[in-house]
């Protein structure tokens, strides 16, 4: 543990003196993760921005004169407000000290070219795991007990040793309770407020967040992968061969980018995040590109909005909400009580999926370039195509089993001829 390489952080300039890096359980995974806690400004999560592994990049950290400055090589992130800190291990994690204890006087090459940006995170997410105790999961909400804020927050401090430190700041605690009220049914018991999670409230809160998220537009990679590709309709057979190739490239480019949008602790989480949101993008086969897409009608626009919204919600669900809660929320979202009606979107996606399956089935199965594409929906389409192929074979086999006479009779014009069942009644019993 003696030498852990330094990490490059971008911290909010306006942070207070009491700001500390602390280790808390990640709301989704419960793994210990680092957060920047500022009693005045709130709490920040770290988002990792990294170059793709294939691109060899590293940081050269040096000091030009008195002002400590970070110079990026390759990643020319000119960040004058960036300072380097050394976080040695958990024990010292709370003491954010300018890295004077380990002078980096003559420059330092940091092999790992990642940059950690502190971005504000809602207290809500940190508080939510206390409602997601395994016993509560699955049981109907009416059975859930009202609990005091003390009891609830107690649960959190059991998991994260630094949580008590956060709670010791009265205004932080108050902020947390306020956030809890937003998603809970409350009752007053004496001078104490009791809380019980309300899924409906939580969901509408999440919808609000998702609306915010898409208001400024989704990151272009998400937009490309889950929105545009999901909603495009397949076109001419001729264009497909090329598009598959270009799409395989596109998906390769996607990978590092989606890494960059996940939080610091979320290395292990990347796969879940992407796969979950993929699931939300349902049936998208995503391997046919449409050259000029018609986003003209108001209908299409609203479909785009719906899909963006759902992608955003599912991103939040899969990244920040404890699994036991997200599993109860997902069905709620698609149910009738959902604040948003996704029915038109589902219908549209089903239509597209059908079109794609048809288009795909018409394509040769020996097209290996398709295997390279990383979308799991492909598998679904493939199995569907396989099924279709089997059906066709079945029909073919049946055709082979029918005699020439039967084929000839099919050509006979039976107009004006009644069916046998019009003359003879159906009997369940066997004729003698």
């Amino acid at each position, binding site marked *: 543990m003696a030498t852990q390489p330094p990490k490059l952080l971008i911290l909010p300039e306006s942070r207070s003196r009491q700001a500390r890096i602390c280790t808390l359980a990640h709301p989704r995974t419960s793994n210990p993760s680092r957060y920047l806690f500022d009693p005045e400004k709130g709490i920040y999560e770290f988002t990792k921005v990294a170059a793709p592994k294939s691109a060899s990049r590293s940081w050269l950290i040096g000091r030009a004169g008195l002002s400590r400055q970070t110079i990026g090589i390759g990643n020319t992130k000119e960040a004058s407000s960036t300072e380097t800190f050394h976080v040695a291990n958990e024990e010292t994690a709370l003491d954010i000290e300018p890295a004077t204890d380990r002078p980096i006087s003559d420059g330092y090459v940091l092999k790992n070219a990642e940059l950690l940006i502190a971005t504000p995170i809602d207290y809500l997410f940190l508080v939510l795991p206390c409602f997601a105790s395994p016993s509560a999961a699955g049981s109907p909400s009416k059975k859930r007990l009202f609990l005091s804020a003390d009891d609830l927050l107690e649960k959190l401090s059991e998991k994260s040793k630094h949580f008590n430190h956060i709670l010791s700041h009265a205004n932080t605690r108050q902020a947390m309770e306020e956030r809890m009220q937003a998603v809970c049914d409350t009752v007053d018991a004496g001078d104490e407020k009791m809380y019980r999670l309300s899924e409906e409230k939580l969901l509408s809160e999440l919808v609000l967040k998702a609306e915010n998220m898409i208001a400024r537009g989704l990151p272009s990679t998400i937009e490309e992968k889950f929105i545009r590709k999901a909603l495009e309709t397949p076109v001419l057979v001729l264009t497909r061969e090329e598009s598959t190739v270009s799409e395989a490239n596109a998906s390769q480019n996607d990978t590092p980018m989606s890494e960059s949008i996940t939080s610091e602790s979320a290395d292990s989480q990347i796969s879940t995040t992407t796969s979950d949101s993929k699931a939300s993008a349902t049936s998208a086969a995503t391997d046919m590109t449409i050259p000029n897409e018609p986003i003209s009608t108001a209908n299409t626009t609203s479909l785009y909005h719906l899909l963006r919204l759902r992608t955003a919600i599912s991103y939040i669900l899969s990244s920040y909400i404890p699994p036991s809660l997200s599993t109860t929320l997902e069905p709620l979202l698609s149910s009738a009580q959902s604040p948003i009606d996704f029915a038109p979107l589902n219908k549209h996606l089903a239509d597209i999926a059908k079109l794609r399956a048809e288009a795909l089935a018409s394509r040769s199965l020996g097209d290996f370039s398709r295997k390279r594409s990383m979308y799991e929906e492909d598998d679904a389409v493939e199995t569907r195509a396989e099924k279709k192929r089997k059906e066709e074979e079945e029909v073919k086999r049946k055709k082979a089993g029918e005699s020439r006479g039967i084929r000839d009779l099919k050509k006979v014009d039976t107009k004006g001829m009644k069916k046998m069942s019009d*003359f003879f009644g*159906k009997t369940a019993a066997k*004729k003698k």
Partner: protein
Amino acid sequence: MLLEARLEQANLLKKVVDAIKDLVQDCNFDCNDSGVALQAMDNSHVALVSMMLKAESFSPFRCDRNIALGINLSSLMKVLRCAQNEDILTLKAEDAPDVVNLVFESSESDRLSEYDIKLMDIDQEHLGIPETEYSATITMPSAEFQRICRDLMALSESVAIEATKEGVKFSCSGDIGNGAVTLRSHTNVDKPELNVEIALSEPVALTFSLKYLVNFCKASGLSSTVKLCLSNEVPLLVEYTLASNSYLRFYLAPKIGDEE
């Protein structure tokens, strides 16, 4: 063994299946203690074939329980072609069978061949066919009926069958012209199989698809005579009578409507 039916001549089953296989693809052979029955419709459901091979046609015949053997007729035909016409054929099936077993014994040598045909589940609707008093019943040589159908087929898709006291007239008209064949009651003492008998309670005129009739005529080898039964607005019955009260019957819906 649940079913064991021995036919003195494989030829019979061969001809029956050959006649049906161009009308239906798969069908159930319903076996019970009275014999082996088959009822099936063609794809368009305008024609129906009904076969009954009575227990007496076999020697011996044993069927302990009612059983339906779903068979693809093309497959059955393939196997039956492996039998010589004079071979002794034995049909065998076990309880809840996967296959039906066919054994061909050569009547002349000690050759014994054995085949299994995979069975299939066929969901078939069964129609109850009432005994009908037909307005006209015509008995004629099966070869004659076959010839008429084939000849008229050259001119048209359909034939009008008109039965009156004078006789029965098969007529058709097509693009190249028209044609008609009329048969009168005729008794040939030397060769009774060439007799033409017309039993009539009232005149009948109906039109039928020739393609189907030609198809039915494939059964001509089974019997020297064929019986046509007609009544207005009911299906035509074409019956080939087999030995021991067994029969092969075809029903065909008449053409009703604007044309002709």
